[in-house]
């Protein structure tokens, strides 16, 4: 009979554990259309920006936002498969392609910052004196100074490849390390390797007190880094939460959202500059 007793005990245990799990699932997923899935880049998540924005949005509208952060390439891929409702990314060329192919509805500018080239304070390749960002990379290549690339098809990686293209160089060799990781990890790796890397200013500010790296090159206009938000096209994927996606876009580009973005600071530095007003300037309807 002891076996039977234990069997009953065991079954009871199962029920006790499944009960709260079920409750957890229901609490999180119902009502169904109140959940928005946002695919975004590691830079907005790792810097803490979304953590500062979303609770307010959720309180304002009652929506719950599930954030899935990956590189821009993967984030767009999730949108392309209809696995998310809205994407917040930073690679205008890829975004336009995404919309042209009918996966996304329309791109709304949200904010911008810029890219910077980080490196050891000693700046062995002397890129502080470079005439342009492409020249800076050319100097790194010429010196074969170690450079850590994101290598993950993210917005930052796309920008970096564009710069190599401008410099008419193919980065190959043991000095060029493709990490295949997020921005934060790559900054850490560059720090450990005393290497150069390209980073967005937002993530850099968030990490600056954790590394010995310095900004060694900045200010070239090609390093402009605009972020856009795009709702996944409901005509293509009727099941996406389009109303939720629009609510999030509306809020992000509203005065409240834009002010929150402008107010988001780390150690006194502004990480992102709001840019939704460009909508009206460009004459694109709200």
């Amino acid at each position: 009979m002891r076996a039977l007793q234990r069997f009953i005990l065991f079954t009871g245990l199962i029920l006790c554990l499944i009960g709260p799990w079920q409750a957890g699932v229901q609490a999180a997923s119902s009502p169904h259309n109140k959940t928005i899935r946002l695919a975004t880049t590691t830079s907005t998540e790792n810097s803490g920006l979304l953590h500062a924005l979303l609770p307010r949005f959720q309180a304002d509208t009652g929506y719950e936002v599930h954030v899935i952060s990956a590189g821009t390439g993967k984030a767009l891929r999730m949108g392309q498969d209809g696995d998310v409702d809205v994407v917040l990314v930073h690679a205008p060329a890829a975004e336009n392609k995404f919309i042209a192919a009918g996966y996304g509805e329309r791109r709304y500018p949200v904010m911008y910052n810029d890219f910077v080239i980080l490196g050891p304070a000693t700046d062995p390749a002397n890129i502080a004196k470079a005439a342009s960002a492409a020249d800076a990379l050319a100097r790194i290549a010429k010196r074969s100074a170690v450079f850590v690339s994101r290598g993950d098809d993210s917005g930052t990686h796309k920008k970096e490849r564009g710069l190599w293209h401008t410099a008419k160089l193919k980065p190959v060799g043991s000095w060029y390390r493709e990490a295949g990781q997020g921005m934060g990890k790559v900054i850490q790796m560059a720090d450990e390797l005393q290497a150069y890397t390209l980073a967005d200013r937002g993530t850099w500010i968030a990490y600056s007190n954790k590394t010995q790296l310095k900004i060694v090159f900045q200010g070239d206009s090609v390093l402009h880094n605009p972020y856009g938000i795009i709702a996944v096209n409901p005509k293509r994927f009727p099941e996406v939460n389009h109303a939720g996606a629009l609510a999030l876009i509306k809020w992000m580009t509203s005065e409240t959202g834009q002010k929150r973005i402008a107010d988001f600071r780390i150690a006194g530095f502004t990480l992102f500059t709001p840019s939704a007003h460009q909508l009206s300037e460009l004459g694109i309807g709200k």
Partner: protein
Amino acid sequence: MEHLFSATQTALGLLVSGNAELWAIIGISFRVSTTAILIAVLPAVLTAFVLSYARFTGRRLLISLFNTLLSIPAVVIGLSCYVLLSRQGPLGDLHLLFTQTAMVIGQVALCFPMLVAMGHSTFQAADKRAWETARTLGASPLYALLTVMHEVRFGLIAALLAGFGRIIAEVGASMMLGGNILHYTRNIPTAIALETSKGEFAQGIALGMVLLVMAFVLNSSLHYFQGKGQIVG
């Protein structure tokens, strides 16, 4: 070294102060993995039993297959489930990707082969007469099965622990299938991966310690059920 020391110190502080976010992550981890192992355990034990006691063609092939599945990286299981569950995939209509259910599915797929493989070797080592005797004495097949299971309970518990150990500490499949969504699918391993990438080592270490403590408590309590861990004469 000082860096590691201060990170550990902060980690302990976070745990003791009952940091809500940290404990929410711990709760999700425990809930998902416990659900997964509970779903997997009965079918797995039955499969293991059938593989040990029944005679049919293809049995050896099946055993090799389950043993092979043990070496599949969790990321590959994650990717396979991802492709199945994506809206573009065959099970896309269920809308399961990036939910706790998806994580449970991935973890069931991960621990099932382990439970079967270990359960099978456990049953194999058992005395076959237990089954025969129980049947001869008029026990129903179910009751006879329970008798055999009781005979080999230590081995089965060991299999359960190994299976649980694999999924509670697994990051690849959980990251892919759950999406590491805060308060929803962020569990201990994916949180450690995230905190590490953010350079927040203290949080990462705190979570790592929780994992260790959880494993220890679980092992100790099952050890208690097992008796003194010695061969009894």
